[in-house]
């Protein structure tokens, strides 16, 4: 018992932070229908500002006021007023991508302003971290742990008193039922909504400031993991119950520490399972609770009065536009190909070859999300599976790298089928979160073994060789990657133009109606997941062979989010969109490399904010601009005819 307690008690502070976040998450999800994935970034913002203020010599209380009472609610309010308010009734993909954009952009903006440096020993909010207050079951309870637990309990107590005994609390609870009905009852629901955002952002800020000192240094990544833990806790409360979400958070923190205590130390499982627990819980809950799956489609009982979402302009498109773009596209492609083989400097050829590999990975997102409406947040993991398979086959079994690249695609496809099996029953946000959890599992456990990604040290992939033909030189490899991209793009084009493409479009439009006309959704989803995973795998393996050495960090789950955001920004509905995304991704990165290191933060900021525009231009910024240009050109060409 003493042993149990000595493992369990250090989990309480973590549990408290998870619980605060979970409560805030459920609060906004219930009342606004937006699943705020940027919540982790909000927590990070407050933690960072608190750190900066304290280090600038401010008293702790002033830093707390600035970070948690002023900045946190303002940030939440800004996000609601300028973004979420407009997309409450938008499709899941729009809400998700906008929130993802914020999740990626906000930490980078902060680092652009406050600098990239490592921030060691984040300050404690209240009691000094160094002093030990008392011992429970052999655990020394220090100031950080004690203050985290006390502050959390106090806040939660206040919160429940407010929700049951005040006017605004009553209105908030009514809002959770239906904002429109609250409005019909004569309540200014916008004002209540503002109050809820302020409150939940305050909770995020508080959780951020409380969490920071539990780690050795302040890193944005810790807050993404915190977010997933909070989502898992919220899922334990079926996304509706605040008390259950709260206790779910506490439980998760405690079980995590228990696992760390009881598992044999020194193995990948023990070091990986503990941080991976929230993802496992989340994945398990999504698969096991049928009620929960439906709850991810949070709908207002009066949602029927919302107008239908606007059509996607790119898929309707003018025929003139498509014809002209096709010719233009081929010309650009030819110029690009010849340039890379002739005058392009070697480092730029290398960069552009990377772009080709990324384009292949991004094709998988076009196929899966753009064409089929399935949101997968683990495409980087599939790319990793492809790369590591190729590497292991080449180094340990002496199999030719070219075959290895294909095998990488095949293994990724197999894993894709395994991931697709739960996806058959999940959809929308639930699928997105399940794939995110899968990606984090791959990060923490799957890629850590020596037979897969080999942890931090990574694995090496030689350049391919075909008979006497070597692809070792930069230009030769460029040609290989170019041919591979054309082949992969051809596959996606063929699928799109054939019956399968139409079936996918039907499935994206309405799964119910697609099944009712005889579309086998299960088979279709499995096939499309497999093909998409294979594309990502091939792209990943090519990328690995280009780099020479790859480690799990090259394919971490955060990259999956960035990939999604990048593709959605340029154009997720077209094959060209994937190629534009791949090129934009590497070119921007290379250009920013010439600037001082701090400016590299511009990269996630640009794409993060770009993703926010998805709500306005679902066809993608590049596709939208192309349309505008063509419309202008055609208007200008028609002008003489009108006059004449």
């Amino acid at each position: 018992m003493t042993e149990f307690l000595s493992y369990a008690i250090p989990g309480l502070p973590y549990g408290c932070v998870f619980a605060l976040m979970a409560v805030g998450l459920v609060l906004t999800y219930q009342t606004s229908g937006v699943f705020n994935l940027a919540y982790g970034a909000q927590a990070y913002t407050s933690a960072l500002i608190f750190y900066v203020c304290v280090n600038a010599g401010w008293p702790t209380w002033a830093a707390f006021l600035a970070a948690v009472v002023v900045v946190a609610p303002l940030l939440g309010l800004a996000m609601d007023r300028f973004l979420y308010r407009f997309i409450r009734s938008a499709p899941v993909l729009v809400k998700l991508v906008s929130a993802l954009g914020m999740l990626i952009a906000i930490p980078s903006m902060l680092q652009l302003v406050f600098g990239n440096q490592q921030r060691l020993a984040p300050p404690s909010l209240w009691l000094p971290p160094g002093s030990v207050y008392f011992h429970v079951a052999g655990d020394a309870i220090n100031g950080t742990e004690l203050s985290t637990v006390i502050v959390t309990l106090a806040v939660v107590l206040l919160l429940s008193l407010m929700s049951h005994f005040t006017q605004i609390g009553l209105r908030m609870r009514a809002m959770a039922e239906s904002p429109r009905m609250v409005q019909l009852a004569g309540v200014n629901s916008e004002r209540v909504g503002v109050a809820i955002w302020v409150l939940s952002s305050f909770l995020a800020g508080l959780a951020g400031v409380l969490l920071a000192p539990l780690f050795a240094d302040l890193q944005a990544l810790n807050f993404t993991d915190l977010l997933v833990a909070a989502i898992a806790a919220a899922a334990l409360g079926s996304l509706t119950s605040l008390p259950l979400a709260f206790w779910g958070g506490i439980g998760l923190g405690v079980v995590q520490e228990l696992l760390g205590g009881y598992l044999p130390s020194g193995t990948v499982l023990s070091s990986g399972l503990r941080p991976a627990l929230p993802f496992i819980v989340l994945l398990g809950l999504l698969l096991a609770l049928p009620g929960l799956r439906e709850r991810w489609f949070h709908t207002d009982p009066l949602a029927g009065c919302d107008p239908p979402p606007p059509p996607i302009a790119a898929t309707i498109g003018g025929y003139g536009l498509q014809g002209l773009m096709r010719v233009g596209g081929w010309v650009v492609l030819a110029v690009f190909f010849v340039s890379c083989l002739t005058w392009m400097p070697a480092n730029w050829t290398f960069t552009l070859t990377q772009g080709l590999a990324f384009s292949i990975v991004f094709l998988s997102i076009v196929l899966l999300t753009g064409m089929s409406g399935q949101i997968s947040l683990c495409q980087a993991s599939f790319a990793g599976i492809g790369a590591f398979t190729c590497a292991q086959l080449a180094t340990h079994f002496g199999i030719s790298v070219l075959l290895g690249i294909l095998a990488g695609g095949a293994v990724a496809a197999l894993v894709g089928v395994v991931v697709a099996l739960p996806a058959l029953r999940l959809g929308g946000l639930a699928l997105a979160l399940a794939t995110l959890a899968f990606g984090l599992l791959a990060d923490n456990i799957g890629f850590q073994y020596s037979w897969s990604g080999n942890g931090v040290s990574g694995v090496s992939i030689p350049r391919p060789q075909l008979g006497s033909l070597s692809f070792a030189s930069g230009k030769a490899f460029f040609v290989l990657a170019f041919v591979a991209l054309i082949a992969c793009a051809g596959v996606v084009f063929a699928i799109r133009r054939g019956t399968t493409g139409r079936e996918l479009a039907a499935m994206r439009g309405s799964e119910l109606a697609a099944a009712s006309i005889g579309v086998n959704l299960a088979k279709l989803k499995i096939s499309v997941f497999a093909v998409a995973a294979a594309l990502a795998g091939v792209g990943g393996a090519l990328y690995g062979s280009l780099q020479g050495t790859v480690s799990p960090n090259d394919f971490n789950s955060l990259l999956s989010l960035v990939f999604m955001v990048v593709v959605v920004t340029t154009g997720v509905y077209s094959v060209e969109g994937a190629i534009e995304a791949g090129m934009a991704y590497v070119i921007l990165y290379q250009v920013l490399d010439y600037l001082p290191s701090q400016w590299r933060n511009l990269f996630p900021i640009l794409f993060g904010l770009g993703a926010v525009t998805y709500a306005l231009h679902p066809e993608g910024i590049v596709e939208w601009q192309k349309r505008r240009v063509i419309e202008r050109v055609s208007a200008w060409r028609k002008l003489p005819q009108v006059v004449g």
Partner: protein
Amino acid sequence: MALLEATGISKRFGGIVALDDVSVVIDPGEAVGLVGPNGAGKTTLFDCINGVRHFDAGEIRFEGRRIDRLAVYERARLGIGRTFQRLELFAGMSPRDHLMVAERVHRADGRFWKDLIGRGRAESTVARVEELLVELRLSDVADDPIESLSQGHGRLVELGRALVQDPRLLLLDEPSSGLDTRETASFASVLLEVRANRRTAMLLVEHDLDLVRRVVERTYVLDFGKLIASGIVDEVLAEPGVRRAYLGDLT
């Protein structure tokens, strides 16, 4: 042999009994109505027949074959087509695309590998789709985005999408809901034409009793999940029990 034989269907949602021992028989080529007040279980029965919902007790036979365990798409391929009370259209696709995809799925020439080698398209599809567009008077809007069409056109597109598959049984779920009188009248005349041209069996859920009278031969009446009457439309509607269900107790 009856085309559709649903026997003793029961379905509960928690404490609510949505369907209580409901039995329905439809012969080949027969048009049958299904009327009843809101919440009577009409759409639930549809969902059970086409497989969107599982039911708790009873069995369903289609052309003598048990279909309870078949998936929605398998029942569709056997020849059960349906429309939806709340339109379920494919966003971003034109009416022509709607019919095209249904036709291709029906012909089952959508093999994945055929697409990959670019042989997944058949020319005869186009002609059939064009014919149907004319029959449903959708030619003018055939290439417009579906979001820009009226509810009335949406209903016709759903009808066409079901018809292009040559169903033997067509389940129509309140086709007149959300339509004005003119649109309803034109939908009715299209429906009658379709009836005259192809003798597809139909089960029609409808509140517009005029439409029901014009299209169907006999009707079932559902109330609170129970079948309370069946027979010729006017006779059934005159029964006191049915009047009470629809209009409430007048005494």
